[in-house]
């Protein structure tokens, strides 16, 4: 059973890799064309926009949700009242699907319905906030939705990390007269690296997989402004009937994951080797 589960991934990736070197159109074929699909991929505007977008989206989303999440966690850690209520409020968006999140924010950012329209109605007619309409800013609209959905989880994970920090540390810091904010920034933060890594990994996986949010919120538009690699692959294997091209794009999506895992594996191996050497000097 476990072999089947593992086999699906290995065999699936092997096929994807193989078909990326063929001229497959609607159905896969065995007509090998070398690196043609990759050459075409990297000269396609749509793909270049997609790659550019995932960087913008990924970096902004991860940075903002980690900073915002940590701020929330620190403030939640101040022995506040109604902590459980606030926690539920910060976390509930994560329980909802990205389709729902996308639709909600599509409406909130709709200039004829959402925030902009409301503020106009309140008399602030010069107010302008409709990122989704403009190809230049549409990607930032997606980031807002992403932050709304994912920051609460970061908060929950980091708060759990903070609560796990040894209470002696806090007493010692207080005795030394170190200001609280410095303790949080320079002492607690490095001590919760495990929680930070967890939150980071969770966000990264979410970024690479982002598909539903795009479909619900912008459909990749306006034009091709919010294309993403995941959307590109699906378009290629469905409506564009260009399987070879889609498989090349899918293989490219695997590349960053392989690099990250290779680094992670290397770090683990070195740590283990160092531990082994330390044990028998």
């Amino acid at each position, binding site marked *: *059973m*476990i072999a089947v*589960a*593992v086999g*699906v*991934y290995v065999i699936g990736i092997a*096929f*994807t890799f193989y078909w990326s070197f063929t001229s497959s159109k609607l159905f896969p074929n065995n007509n090998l064309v070398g690196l043609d699909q990759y050459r075409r991929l990297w000269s396609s505007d749509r793909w270049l926009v997609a790659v550019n977008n995932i960087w913008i989206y990924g970096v902004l989303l991860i940075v903002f949700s980690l900073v915002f999440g940590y701020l*929330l966690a620190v*403030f939640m850690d*101040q*022995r*506040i009242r109604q902590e459980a209520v*606030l926690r*539920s*409020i*910060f*976390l509930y968006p994560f*329980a*909802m*699907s990205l*389709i*729902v999140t996308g*639709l909600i*924010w599509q*409406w*909130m950012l709709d200039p004829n*319905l959402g925030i902009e*329209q*409301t503020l*106009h*109605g309140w008399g602030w007619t010069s107010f302008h906030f409709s990122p989704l309409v403009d190809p230049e800013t549409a990607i930032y609209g997606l980031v807002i939705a992403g932050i*709304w959905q994912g920051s609460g989880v970061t908060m*929950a*994970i980091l*708060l*759990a990390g903070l*609560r796990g920090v040894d209470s002696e540390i806090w*007493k010692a810091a207080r005795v030394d007269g170190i200001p609280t904010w410095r303790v949080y920034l320079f002492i607690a933060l490095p001590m919760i690296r495990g929680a930070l890594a*967890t*939150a980071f*990994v*969770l966000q990264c*996986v979410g970024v*690479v*997989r982002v*598909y*539903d949010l795009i*479909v*619900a919120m912008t459909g990749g538009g306006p034009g091709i402004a919010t294309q993403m690699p995941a959307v590109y*692959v*699906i378009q290629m294997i469905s409506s564009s009937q260009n*399987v070879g091209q889609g*498989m090349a794009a*899918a*293989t490219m*999506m*695997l590349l960053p*994951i392989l690099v990250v*895992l290779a680094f992670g594996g290397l770090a683990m191996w070195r740590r283990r080797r160092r531990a082994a050497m330390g044990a028998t000097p």
Partner: protein
Amino acid sequence: MSAGDMTLTDTEAEARWGTQPGGVKPRRFSPARLGIYGFLVISALFFLIPLYVMIVTSLKTMPEIRLGHLFSLPGEVTFQPWVDAWLNACTGRDCNGLHPGFLNSLKITIPSVVVSIIIASINGYALSFWRYKGANLFFGLLVFGAFVPYQVVIYPLIIAAREAGLYSTLAAIVIVHTIFGMPILTLLFRNYYASVPIELFKAGRVDGAGFWQIFFRIMVPMSVPITTVAVILQVTGIWNDFLFGVVFAGRSNWPMTVQLNNIVNTTTGVREYNVNMAATILTAAVPLAVYFISGRWFVRGIAAGAVKG
């Protein structure tokens, strides 16, 4: 960090801050406290306002929505949009509302959750207690599988489903959910069983129990907490899925998320925002209910799913 850290308690906070601090007790309404609450309340509004807007808009009539007061309470409350969303909203030519999608989501979610958890618990058990050749390799590949973007393996799966004659069936979508749930769930169960004392297992072996006997007699009764976490993780994950539903399930089995997206993002006709928002809330209702009922378990599931290995 382990998932156990999630159960934070007041006593821990007390240990940190001390019940009677040596210095001055912080005043309730110092400017700093005000700032803390200010930040938290504004953040809470950021998270809450979209939900509030959705609820009030879904209770308004279309003429009232056109007036553009997004935040105001409905002048006259109407439940017609909710009825329409459930029974009459149109996706293309079909005007049956969301309820077929709801039933489909049930038909997809229940077997997927049951099958994937049964298989994953056996896998996790086998990985942690039965050291067979290649167990480490399997484990490494599973961790890898947890990170693989779906798009990388989705097309070979489509072809495989087609070859097997399962494409666009309920069976296909259940199998696909089971496969993609396998890495995280197996890791979850393996880590849980790894914390079970090996003596229990050895005692079973001495008494002559085999693979299945130990699993059913010893492991399964101990697995209630981890199974709860796994159920929460799978129910919300599968209910919220869009990609696999649209690709594998076939038109007649489309889950709720797919139907919702079709209802809302159809380009024809007048946009009925109240119906659309009611439909959106209905789609989110099941995972939200799971979230509010399960409380802390939910966070535990997320964290456990993220800490791979």
